[in-house]
């Protein structure tokens, strides 16, 4: 991936360059504006939002909305704030990401280094599973979770996210291991190393970059999921996105916009943080899964 280098044969004149920078900066504003304005308004008192100008900085800076969104805002029927739901999301995301990444790594290893008849067909079936509209599985999934007692629980959501994340993680690891020299593995086999030993000693030590990619991808997708959370979770397992939606859409009382915004920032914070820290890898991951196929 040569995304970091910017070597091009194209040369541009002065006027063109001015125009280029103008367009690029205008678009930067377009991308920054809605979220940025929301961030600024989350530290304003409510009166300044309803009565004032959304593009102005606060006259009075306050972290009150942040505290309220976190610990005392009314979510559904209870005034718990978003914090319990934040932890629900964490409890769901961590195991789901770990399990789907481990399975994806093993699948990718098998599908590239231990090929057998019909492996391409199996991979195709896994890959197709990434792209189905989830509406097609909602009804039976609700039934099965109900029958197994997993409905409304965090393990139920973990299961759902593992199943529907497997295709992507398998794809990433398969693409990554595909270019890994197979001779090394054959040589290790001749030396008497078995399946897991080869994986652990030869492939795993050089899998760092793709593990990062898989973890970031899964983390972002699962954290941001709304459909499964809204369909299969109850109060004890509802993820952050569902709670945020309940907070924002609640119709009773005064609409506390600043609290809503602070809540939205909380919901966005983990993925944004991951993005800022490791965004470079994230982009590469998206590329690996899409452009290279």
């Amino acid at each position, binding site marked *: *991936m*040569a*995304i970091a280098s910017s*070597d091009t044969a*194209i*040369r*541009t004149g002065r006027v063109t360059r001015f125009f*280029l920078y103008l*367009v*690029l900066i205008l678009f*930067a504003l377009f*991308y*920054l*504006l809605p*979220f940025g*304005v*929301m961030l600024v308004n989350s530290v304003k008192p409510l009166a300044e939002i309803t009565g004032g100008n*959304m593009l102005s900085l606060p006259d009075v800076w306050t972290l009150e909305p942040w505290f309220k969104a976190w610990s005392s805002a009314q979510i559904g029927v209870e005034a718990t704030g978003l914090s319990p739901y934040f932890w629900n999301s964490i409890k769901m995301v961590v195991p789901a990401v770990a399990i789907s990444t481990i399975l994806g790594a093993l*699948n990718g290893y*098998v599908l590239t280094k*231990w090929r*057998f008849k019909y492996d391409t067909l*199996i*991979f*195709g*079936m896994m*890959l197709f*599973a990434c*792209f189905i*509209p*989830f*509406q*097609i*599985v*909602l*009804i*039976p*999934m609700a039934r099965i979770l109900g029958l197994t007692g997993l409905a409304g629980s965090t393990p139920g959501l973990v299961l759902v996210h593992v*199943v*529907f994340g*497997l295709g992507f993680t398998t794809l990433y690891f398969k693409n990554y291991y595909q270019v890994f020299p197979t001779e090394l593995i054959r040589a290790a086999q001749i030396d*008497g190393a*078995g399946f897991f030993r080869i994986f652990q000693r030869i492939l795993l030590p050089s899998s760092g970059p793709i593990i990062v990619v898989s973890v970031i991808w899964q983390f972002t997708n699962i954290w941001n999921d*709304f459909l499964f959370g809204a369909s299969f979770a109850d109060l004890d397992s509802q993820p952050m996105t569902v709670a*945020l*939606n309940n907070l*924002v859409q609640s119709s009773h009382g005064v609409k506390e*916009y600043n609290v*809503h*915004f602070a809540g*939205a920032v909380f*919901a966005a914070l983990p993925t*944004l943080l991951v*993005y800022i820290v490791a*965004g470079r890898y994230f982009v590469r991951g*998206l*590329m690996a899964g*899409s*452009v290279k*196929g």
Partner: protein
Amino acid sequence: MASHATNPDFRTRLQNWIPKLVLSPSLALILFFVYGFIFFTVYLSFTDSRILPSFGWVGFENYEKLFRLRHWDIAVSNLVVFSGLYIFFCTVIGLMLAIFLDQKIRGESVLRPIYLYPMALSFIVTGTAWKWFLDPGIGLEHTMHLWGWESFEFNWIKDRNFAIYTVVLAAVWQSSGFVMAMFLAGLRGIDNEMLKAAQMDGASNFSLYRRIIILQLRPAFLSAFVILSHLAIKSYDLVVALTGGGPGRATEVPATFMYSYTFTRNQMGIGASSAVTMLLTIVAIMVPYLYSELREKK
């Protein structure tokens, strides 16, 4: 390890089985939760299921009802409008930003993350931000009025005829930066020698892009199209957060239709048939793509 060498036959056979054993849990999960469930939903779409699944066979009745429903009509035409505009604008903006960024721009490393960060957000967050930004009483319109531009009017989100375009706006905001990244990666992969040769022959920048570079980006176009159309048909979260399907039914899409018929209106048969229709649309787009991808690998 050496002890195994005394029995190479057993060892070899075991080694042949381990990979398949390792793959089997994933395969079982996918077979059951994806293909089994698809089969189950397809079956339900031919039954008289209402609140709960039931197994009275009704043939194509649900599909006939579905296609006669005005509600479904609105949902489908909204999806056509939405996905058409969404894919078009994401591609145009993404390509333009990628080409512009590729001109040795100072501050590229600052701009790129700014374009990309919306992709990290949940659609619920995006919806919350845009819903308020577009609200005429408190958002952009209100602000323009405060700045003295009294005649400024932007109330699409409250207008039945225009609300769907606000969904497009928010969705393009969220995904176009990602399309930019895909095209940028494609651009960076193009061989500069060829471009230099064409320049020697006196080709202008514009014709370089039109005749050589854009053609080389074909795989990126294809991937962008596939990913965007798959995001478009799944567009449930954004509609829920931004407009809730309203005003009225003005921004209803198949994903919200399916949810409300299945879980709130207790018309599971019709809900299932709408889900199957969505799946068939995706299959028509995805299967040729996946087939070509997997064949090239050989």
